[in-house]
């Protein structure tokens, strides 16, 4: 399965952006198994790109194709299926249920399309050092802890593509590496592609392709 972008440019960017970007206005395709690193300074449209690829926003020109289907043609139900089966994401702004516990936040995602058994949640949480937070409400966890919850959540479903939008912004190197290791393992299990957008290069992400946004 391939994720392709053709002449993609947000409507609010001017054409000049195309000349000094590896992604905007280009034709690219990402395949399963690839590790894509996108280095993007602030304001270069990193979050926009992730939102476009995930289908949350449509304010762009050009097209995004999943297989041979243009995702702009997707209806609400199509997107629901797409997100359930094919694509997962770690948002920069995390998007957890603040009133729900960490455990509930994770279980909500797992139950949608179980890839792992329920026990796996505990195991992953232990591995990233938030095993004792499963019963706490998400809103009282620190931002770093919430970031790890969001990372684990993204790994509880099947996917061909995993989109990461600055997933380690509030994690120290040690925790980031542990999280990266977990994500790589999970991606490998699914032979999935990781599209990792961050401000700068990170050494412990073994990318196969590097783009500057």
């Amino acid at each position, binding site marked *: 399965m391939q994720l392709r972008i053709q002449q993609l440019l947000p409507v609010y960017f001017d054409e000049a952006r195309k000349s000094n970007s590896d992604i905007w206005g280009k034709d690219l395709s990402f395949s399963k198994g690839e590790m894509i690193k996108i280095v993007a300074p602030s304001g270069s449209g990193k979050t926009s790109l992730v939102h476009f690829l995930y289908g*949350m926003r449509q304010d762009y020109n050009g097209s995004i194709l999943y297989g041979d289907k243009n995702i702009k043609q997707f209806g*609400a*139900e199509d*997107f*629901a*299926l*797409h*997100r*359930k089966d094919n694509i997962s994401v770690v948002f920069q702004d995390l*998007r957890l*249920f603040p009133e729900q516990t960490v455990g509930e936040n994770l279980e*909500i*995602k797992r139950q*949608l*399309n179980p890839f792992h058994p329920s026990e796996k949640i505990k195991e992953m949480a232990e591995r990233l050092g938030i095993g004792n937070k499963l019963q706490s409400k998400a809103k009282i966890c620190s931002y770093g802890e919430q970031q790890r919850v969001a990372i684990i959540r993204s790994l509880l*479903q099947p996917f061909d593509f995993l989109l990461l939008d600055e997933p380690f912004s509030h994690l120290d190197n040690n925790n980031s590496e542990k999280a990266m290791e977990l994500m790589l393992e999970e991606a490998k299990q699914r032979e999935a592609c990781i599209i990792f957008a961050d401000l700068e290069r990170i050494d412990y992400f073994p990318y196969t392709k590097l783009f500057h946004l």
Partner: protein
Amino acid sequence: MLLLLCSLQMFINIQQLLTRNSIRKNGSDFVSIAKNITNENMGKDNRFSSADIAELKAQPFIEDAAPLIPNLFRVQASAGQMVNFSSDIFIEALNNNFIDTVPPTFTWVENQPTLPVIFSSEFLEMYNVFAPSWELPQLSPATATNVAISLHCEGKLGERIFIARIVAFSDRVNSILVPENFLEWANKTLEGQDSTKSSRVFIKTKDANNSDLLKFLDQKDYRVNKDKTMFGRSKQILQGIITGLGVFGLLVILLALMLFSFYLQLVIARSKDNLQLLLTLGYSPAWLSQNMAKQFMPVYIFVVLTGLALTQVMQWSFHHFVMYDRPELSSFVDWVVIAAAILLIILSIITNYRLVKRLLYRMF
């Protein structure tokens, strides 16, 4: 809900009570009608023309209509030696199909000196009431049929005497009836006129209490035997009241549904962020709306079933305490009411599901 279901049940009760109670012969009601005589139309001709009768026959709720043809000549009756009584009377003729008791002897051929007569049972009763004070013998129906009455018919063109014999008594027609062909012949021979117009018309109808019929008669200003249509009159009023109540109940339900939909919108608006996040995570809007609708389903079902149960209690009490277990009615609610309740449940579930779904899709 209770109001609506109760009105529906009462409506059905009234229908059942009144259709089963009305007096029927051969499944039809026979009613005689006449034009209303008022001070305004007193001088005019208030008889039915053949056009009037054709119009009556054309009405869907009137199966048939026949005029009561009157005598146009003078008729004097005397009973001879046995009953020393003599009086001017009137005779009428009516199509045999409209008479309840027609014996085979009720025929007349020209030059036949005897005349069969069908006599109103009420007239006989009336006679028996005043007979003693006039020193006349009271008569049983059997004796009355043996009395030979001499009818002295006198018109412009001549006079004839016939020996009349009562061959039957009628409960339906308040008149002295003779065979149709006799009166036609007599009117022509003695008075030189065709018997076309009549003051009374008999109509045959499926239901004398039919509101369309009553409306039509009112509109034409025709007078009808009040007794026979009294049920229909009270039915009209009762049904009006019950329908009014039903409409009110319907309005209340509509209002309640609206209120509930506002409440639902509020609930959705309050949890908008959570719902949006669920959609972002990949939950299907159709699935979510189904689940939301399911949350409210028990409330609806509970409300409707409670309404139904109370209607049942009401119907039972009505039947038992007010109607003293009359056999025409049932102690249980009619299936129409149950069907209406089920319909209401389905309707409210569907409208809610659609509302939630629309709101969720808008959120996407």
